[in-house]
């Protein structure tokens, strides 16, 4: 059986839920507390895929810094999940910037866009249509997730895995 290792990055403004999405995906749990990430935390998860095992190295990066991301964090990324917080409109506007930074170092790397915290229905500030329009404009699929309930979290990573395979 072949094992392929690939680096993917989680990008997005601070507190959109990047760390929580990884925690849900890798450890299957959720934590209400907010601990800002600085630098990068790398997690591993093996995905059994029809073509063999895909070992994802997931780079959970600090977001929303006034400094642009260090290029060594993004270099060598095969793809990325770029997330916004559906309850904070400003977090959607940052999609462009993260996509640009990723593609500057990894031209054409697949991206899956995520609207997270879909469970907070009453606080919703970004509509489905707005999320879809932004994703389509940047040329990637989008998924609405909740790291809290687990909704669509696996699906988002699986969608990226599919795109990585399609590109190899």
């Amino acid at each position, binding site marked *: 059986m072949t094992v392929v*290792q*690939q*680096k993917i990055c989680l990008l997005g403004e*601070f*507190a959109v839920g990047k760390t929580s999405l990884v925690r849900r995906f890798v450890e299957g749990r959720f934590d209400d507390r*907010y*601990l*800002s*990430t*600085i*630098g*990068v*935390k*790398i997690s*591993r998860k093996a995905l059994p895929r029809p073509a063999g095992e895909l070992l994802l*190295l997931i780079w959970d990066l*600090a977001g*929303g810094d006034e400094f642009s991301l*260090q290029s*060594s*964090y993004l*270099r*060598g*990324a*095969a793809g990325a999940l770029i997330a916004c917080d559906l*309850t*904070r409109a400003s977090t959607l506007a940052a999609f462009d910037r993260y996509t640009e930074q990723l593609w500057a170092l990894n031209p054409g790397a697949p991206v899956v866009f995520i609207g997270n915290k879909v469970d907070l229905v009453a*606080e919703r*500030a970004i509509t489905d249509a707005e999320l879809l329009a932004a994703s389509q404009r940047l040329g990637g699929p989008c998924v609405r997730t909740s790291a809290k309930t687990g909704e669509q979290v696996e699906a988002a990573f699986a969608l990226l895995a599919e795109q990585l395979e399609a590109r190899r």
Partner: protein
Amino acid sequence: MTAPTNPAGPVDLSARAAAAFSRLYGLAYARVGPDLTIQQASPAFLALVDQPTALIGQPLSAVLWEFVGADEALRPVLAGQSPRYQLERVNRELPDGQIHYLTFWVVPWSETQPGAGLIVIVEDADRFGQLEQSLVQSRNELHLAQAQLLRANQKLEQLATTDDLTGLPNRRYFEQALRRELDRGQRYRHATALLLADVDQYSPFRDLYGNPLGDEVVKLVALLLADRLRGVDRLARLEAGSFALLLPETDLPGAAVVAERLRERVAREAGPALTAQRPGAADGAQFTLSLGVGAAPAQAATPSELWDVADAALTHAKATGRNRWSTTPTAYVISSK
């Protein structure tokens, strides 16, 4: 002090420096060959990897996940084209159970021999990392608190313009809408109609059956009034059993048709609906509406004039027997019944 034995050949200054640091400070470092496999590692470096035994000869990226995908970035350093590769603040939970913030430095093994290999040095920038983390944490929490405050204010604004019981706009909001609509009507020479509606004998009913049932009646009537309005129409609850309805681009005869439709619907459905919803509470009770109708510019030029006209018409409807609508008697009187 003796330099460590180096199976790969003569040791130059940077190698000797790394070895010396390693002994003095327990520095974590490894030597990597031109093929990017590990050739030698310090004891502190071994503590950072999953399987310290089978280390030698393994690709760097197989030993440290941090280097998966980094080959392309390392080659220029190996070739002497780039002075170093550096990866800062890598969060690692070490065996002490704490999160450590590590920096990986990769520099050429030999300053005189490009291509000889690389040294990977791992620095534990713990204290600075934790300090920076707490700074970033405070800043981010402040931003989040601001965002929450903004949302709370919007909610407050909404509460200030909404009637709690029915969820309809309240009087304050309605008066603003009326002003805006009359302005617009004047500009585009459109007629605008205002309906004021009271549930007949509402106060005696509430006194007799209590507030909870009185509230039920208001909610039922609100639903009946709101049903089948146009998107531009604005319905508000003013107080107790009183409602106001703004009909843009509607003249007096048009408004009278709406008034009659609402009167008829409430008279027919409100009583039975309450009985169905709360059996035994006030079985057989009937509810009717009195309505006053006014229109601008035919009867009034300003919002307060229009309000007065509709209010006078409402008083007239009540005085002449209730369960009816009326236009003001001072203009041309048309009324139901």
